[in-house]
């Protein structure tokens, strides 16, 4: 499903964020990307989602070489992913329903069909009662769940989350982790970057540990 082969990434004017990273994640697998902050976790996820391109090496997603993708194709590639960002990236000028609607509109799904799927996604993360609420009125955990709802509403085959429990207390974090585990159980490939070990131990999954851009798989 996802294969990294000797991937390095260097940002202009800085040291290498990733050095010769190789690994493979099978379909329906759950993988944790761990490491201290600055170890290259976010870079790794960005390379997967074709937000960044590798400086060298190949990134294969479902047999497609991300680094060789034509710019026109990139958007369609990204639609295979559900992305949960470190900083949520919710839109604060619209309510929960409209936030979750965005990926569907991008995919050209509107009207009744969209409403049905948006409510299903909100229901899954336990926010069905809050569809009219503005994101700013939600707690941190609820905002994170809203971001997850947005990531899964278009039923992606790969779910990528960058520090989804970063700013949450333990109970919320456990909730969120359980949610990801549930997606994994219905066949979604889930990749989670996290710097803390909370909740990881309770869920079985592949561990990709990054240390200064070098990978150790366990």
């Amino acid at each position, binding site marked *: 499903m996802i294969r990294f082969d000797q991937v390095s990434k260097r940002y202009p004017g800085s040291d290498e964020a990733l050095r010769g990273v190789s690994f493979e994640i099978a379909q329906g697998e759950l993988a944790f990307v761990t490491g201290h902050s600055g170890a290259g976790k976010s870079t790794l996820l960005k390379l997967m989602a074709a*937000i960044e391109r590798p400086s060298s090496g190949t990134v294969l997603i479902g047999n497609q070489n991300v680094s060789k993708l034509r*710019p026109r194709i990139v958007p*369609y590639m990204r639609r295979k*992913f559900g992305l949960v960002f470190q900083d949520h*990236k919710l*839109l604060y000028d619209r309510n929960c329903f409209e936030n979750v609607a*965005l*990926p569907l509109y*991008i995919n*050209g799904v509107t009207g009744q069909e969209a409403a049905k799927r948006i409510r299903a996604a909100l229901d899954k993360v336990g926010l069905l009662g809050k569809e009219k609420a503005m994101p700013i009125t939600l707690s941190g955990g609820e905002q994170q769940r809203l971001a997850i709802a947005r990531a899964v509403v278009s039923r992606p085959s790969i779910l990528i989350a960058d520090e989804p429990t970063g700013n949450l207390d333990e109970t919320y974090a456990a909730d969120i982790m359980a949610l990801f585990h549930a997606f994994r159980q219905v066949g979604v490939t889930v990749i989670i970057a996290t710097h803390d070990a909370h909740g990881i131990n309770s869920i079985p999954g592949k561990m990709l540990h990054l240390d200064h851009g070098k990978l150790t798989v366990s």
Partner: protein
Amino acid sequence: MKHWINQHTLVWRLVLARICRNKLATLLIWAVIGIALCLPAILYVIIDNVNQLAGEVKNEPQISVFMKLDADKATVANIKSLLEKHSGISNLKFVSKDSAWKAMQDSALTDNIAANLKHNPLPDAFFIQPKAHAPSAIDQLQHELQTLEGVEHVLADADWAKRLYSILELGKKAVWVLSGLLGFALVTIIGNTIRLQILTQREEIEVSKLIGATDGFIRRPFLYAGTLYGLGGSLAALLFVNGIITIFNLSVADLAELYGSSFILALPDWQISLGITACAVALGWLGSYIAVNRSLARLNPH
């Protein structure tokens, strides 16, 4: 197809909602565009009108040949036969000094003047309609006639028309230059407005892009907004132009009456109106396209 319609109605609704939210700002943009467009439009309408007025005159160029007062009958007859044979003349009318004098005395307008004169001051005259209407041909004929024996003065009506035409040509050029400059200003105004909108919606664009929106999807609402600015602006311009010309016409009618004419400025016809609208819409689209593309380029993966 249904997808496509859905997406477009969605975008239109979004754009209209945004415009409704910023009513005052939208009205101001329309007014600015309207003013920018109405300047060359008014100039064009005036020049077009004067052009048509001149066109009526141009259709019958006339050359008047006035004989010397002391020219005798033989000279006049000689010239008459010469002109009758001339290949460049389509119509010739001879007015002798006596018949002109009689006409002057008979005319109600000039009989006062005639009564005060002791003897006939008028020369024999030929009124010629040339075959060729081109200014250069008329010019040539005028010079040729001037050299004839016994001719005092040759007057070509085309003279003032020619001057008017060169002024009109200059005016037309001015319209083009002004249109060009203000068209550029229009692209800049709309582009800048769209750029500001993009700044306020940067997050949305960024997120959309990250979760798989194509450039077309992101561009669409801004292109529609730019087009709407152009459309609204052109309608404002037409309103301004029609209003201003109507106000002008009150004075133009007064002025024309003094010259015994019923001339008034014609309002721009539907072709001109449509042209202005099409130009503004196209420029609005172009301005927003440039603005969106610049900001999209910054979001592409590197």
